[in-house]
């Protein structure tokens, strides 16, 4: 299974901004699992898209992480993208946004 060590990712992201400082390695691993399995249900395990749009690095090129985090938190009305705010903190949404932008797929 594709599973880079969460602490390495965390170390990388800690350089990119303070917003992820509160994410523990254990939580980071859960978030990574969530991206693969739950986001993957609609966006594909390779993030090439499905009912949801592609989330590959290429597809997201130029997107601001803050904008992606807002989409994750509040969803996209009129589409199947639900608001994840009930399940994620703002820091966690930022962590996911940064992950999608930086983890090659």
């Amino acid at each position: 299974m594709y599973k880079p060590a969460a602490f390495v990712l965390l170390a990388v992201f800690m350089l990119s901004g303070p917003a992820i400082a509160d994410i523990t390695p254990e939580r980071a691993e859960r978030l990574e699992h969530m991206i693969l399995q739950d986001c993957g249900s609609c966006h594909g395990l390779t993030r090439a898209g499905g009912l949801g749009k592609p989330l590959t690095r290429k597809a997201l090129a130029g997107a601001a992480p803050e904008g992606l985090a807002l989409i994750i938190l509040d969803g996209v009305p009129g589409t199947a993208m639900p608001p994840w705010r009930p399940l994620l903190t703002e820091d966690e949404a930022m962590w996911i946004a940064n992950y999608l932008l930086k983890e090659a797929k």
Partner: protein
Amino acid sequence: MKRPILALALILMTAPVCAADTTMATGDLGLVVERTTGSLLAVDRSEHAAIGRIEGLGDLSHASITYSPDERFAYVFGRDGGLTKVNMLSQAIVKRVLQAGNSIGGAISDDGKLIAVSNYEPGGVRVFDADTLEMVADIPLNAKTIGLVDLPRRRFAWATWDSGEAWMADFSGPEMVLTKLGDVGKNPYDAVLTDDGRTFLIGLFGEKGVTAIDLWADKPEPVRFLKDYGKDQEDLPVYKMPHLQGWAFTGDQFVLPAVGQHELLWVDRRSLTETARTKTHGQPVFIIAQPGSPYVWVNFATPLNDTVQVVDSRNHQVVKTLTPGEGVLHMEFAPRGAEVWISVRDADKVKVFDSFDYHLIAEIAAQSPSGIFFTSRAHRIGL
């Protein structure tokens, strides 16, 4: 499969062991989709055991499987557009084609000769020769296809997510005949054919309601029902799209998932009117009737996907709540309903339960298991 001949040979010692009959049959076999690793686990239903693994099937998120009429071959539809033909006896890939960029499911014609695949990218349906996997028809339609089912006499029906239409393709004559069945509503998320082959039921995500098309009518037309369920309640987020493929037909009722509500909706088959609702643990994903019983089994969207509930269709009450573990993705019944196989993704297990007293019969190791497909599906209409 039991091998009584081998046992007899060992007991009686009347013949050398090497003369034992090693012929296999496929009637109680199945495949479990291992979504993260792009592999399939071959399982033996009678032995409650894994008997092999087939690898190299690409992206198997949202994969589904149909079987040839002789239950020898499986056709696997992968997310990455892969259509793979697998030999159940040798447990090997016979042929694999990348027929599209992004696909979602498929169906086999009643004569076993045609394989239809529903695609997201490009949209539409492509139809292939079941022997060679050569394409025999391409129906673009410029929309994502959902709910593709086989109909009797070499026909297929489906709906389109983007444009909200239902279509039928008829391959019974020398030329394919394509018919639009009608406009069915905004963003259909899945569709299913009733067990009698009569009604094509299409669930809507973009607006409240379900559309039924009576395929026995001279001129089939969409009829909307359940148009205002939950209209007085605020919609809850839908963290996983429900599926209608579960054949949730019991007695004179359909049971359907409420979208954005943690409820089941019970509907009278003939009048298409709501008869009852059942509050459930979470957003229902699959609602599957336990064959030969009044019960349906329900699993739920994340983050409440560690639970399965059993509901009695006679009084619409939850009669049992099980917690097999995080990531319950699918349930498949033995054809006569005695046991249910449940994939528990995060436990890396398929768990087998007795359908009537709910005791755990067996656990089978599997890598992030999702869909479970027994070969007996070969003989069921509309899958």
